[in-house]
């Protein structure tokens, strides 16, 4: 039985990674609003975000020497073109993953996974694009979890679709199907900090979010009725709050709270998080949170805890060294906990291309049982056009 303890972890890899990079606070972007249409990050990039991706994030080493940065930026639009109109933006995304599990053991297995193949469309209107309509539709890798939460195992589905209206540059209202506003939206959907509070790749919800920026503060209040694609009794209805405070220009500290319930379970999550910028692309991300699950079917309650510590250092433009340490204790009353850690390399050789390698070691700490360490290698290719 013990060998199957890893199955849930492995299954989590069979879906897409999100596309949010909160570590880019170290490039002077503490807020996601400049680069993403969704002010909390993830989803299609704004024209500015595409340009930052081309000139600030990606390496410039492989471009012809005769190209200046303006030329590079001019190719950052959809299919390497400069937009000729103001109202429609499109984006295509692909992420593939070579996963080598049980690395170095007799059961080592290598699998290629198409994590994401999607198209995004944005319609934008009014001065300063105050009104936006955003949608993403694409391939959904089969998930063993989907059925258990009342979702049909569809191969294509909407990732998000919502309407956003900025009442002013400081405040905006967003209504539709989108990610919940909670915690640090790190790109690894397998992160315990995303998995335990249920804010990972298949946890989008229908609802209304109000986002605000004011005098060094940024936050969002999100009321939701669950995913309408789920059967009614599984829909998690509730609300969340995420707030961050900017410190000394470069850093953010904040907290998140979320409460939701369906016919079977009540879920309350809360977390403290911070993003520290060491400038020139180097950053430290931290989140410590707790989740309380109350099962309404008298199957028992549990309080779990998770932690995330990620470091990013950028020796040269386009290249990031990643350090990742995660902690998970699904039930504080049990003696079992998991620590997952490992190094990674993220490389953007040219604009619209990300290559990433992560090595993960997972160790289960349990005073009543012993399991061997597991190593896993993930090699990821990400294209956005």
């Amino acid at each position: 039985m013990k060998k199957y303890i890893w199955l849930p972890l492995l299954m989590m890899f069979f879906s897409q990674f999100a596309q949010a990079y909160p570590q880019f606070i170290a490039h002077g972007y503490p807020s996601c609003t400049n680069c993403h249409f969704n002010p909390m990050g993830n989803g299609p990039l704004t024209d500015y975000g595409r340009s930052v991706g081309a000139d600030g994030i990606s390496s410039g080493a492989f471009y012809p020497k005769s190209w200046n940065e303006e030329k590079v930026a001019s190719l950052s639009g959809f299919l390497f073109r400069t937009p000729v109109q103001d109202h429609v933006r499109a984006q295509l995304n692909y992420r593939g993953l070579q996963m080598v599990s049980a690395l170095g053991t007799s059961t080592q297995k290598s699998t290629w996974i198409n994590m994401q193949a999607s198209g995004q469309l944005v319609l934008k209107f009014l001065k300063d694009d105050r009104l936006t309509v955003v949608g993403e539709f694409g391939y959904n890798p089969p998930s063993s979890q989907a059925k258990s939460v009342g979702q049909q195992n569809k191969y294509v589905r909407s990732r998000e679709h919502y309407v956003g209206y900025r009442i002013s540059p400081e405040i905006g209202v967003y209504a539709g199907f989108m990610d919940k506003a909670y915690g640090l939206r790190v790109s690894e959907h397998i992160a315990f900090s995303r998995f335990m509070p249920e804010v990972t790749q298949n946890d989008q919800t229908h609802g209304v979010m109000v986002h605000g920026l004011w005098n060094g503060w940024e936050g969002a209040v999100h009321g939701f009725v669950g995913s309408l694609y789920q059967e009614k009794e599984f829909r998690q209805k509730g609300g969340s709050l995420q707030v961050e405070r900017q410190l000394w220009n470069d850093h953010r500290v904040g907290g998140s709270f979320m409460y939701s319930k369906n016919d079977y379970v009540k879920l309350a999550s809360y977390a403290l998080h911070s993003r520290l910028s060491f400038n020139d692309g180097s950053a430290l991300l931290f989140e410590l949170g707790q989740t309380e699950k109350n099962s309404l079917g008298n199957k028992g309650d549990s309080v779990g805890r998770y932690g995330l510590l990620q470091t990013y250092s950028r020796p040269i433009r386009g290249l990031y060294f990643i350090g990742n340490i995660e902690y998970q204790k699904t039930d504080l009353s049990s003696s079992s906990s998991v620590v997952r850690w490992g190094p990674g390399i993220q490389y953007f050789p040219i604009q619209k291309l990300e290559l990433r390698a992560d090595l993960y070691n997972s160790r289960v700490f349990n005073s009543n049982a012993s399991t061997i360490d597991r190593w896993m290698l993930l090699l990821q290719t990400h294209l956005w056009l």
Partner: protein
Amino acid sequence: MKILLLFLGLICSNNAYSAEDSLSLNVKLTPAGSFVAKSNKLKGDVVKDGTSFKAEKLTVLISTFKTGMALRDEHFCKHLKCEANPKATLSDFVGTNGVGKGILEVAGVKKPIEVTYVDKGNQLVAQLNFKASEFGLPPAKYLGVGVNDEVTGEVTITFKAK
């Protein structure tokens, strides 16, 4: 090992305790974010005379500012009209008791400016605030992201005793 010790000794010599002479400008973006434009190519002398400080002319080449992003470096230079006015200049600076006054010239426009400063032993660290529009610079915007008119800055410069 000796070479290593010698190397460590060299980098721990007195210069290691002084910050490099520099001018940093903190520019805020709208709707959110900021960047620092920094140049380490300050030219000119600050002289300490008793308790006061004087500088005839401090200059910095606009093209030497680095903002952490190459395209932004180009935009910064263009926005400050660096082809026509390649230098920013602080002239006739006189400072006493932590407050200094001088004439700041940016993009060919001269304005009086007041700064506050701290004497750090062998360096002067001065804080300055100004509005870009006072120097005839139009509001900057790139692909929907704008720049705040108000700019704060910090000058770190080694001074000489008279």
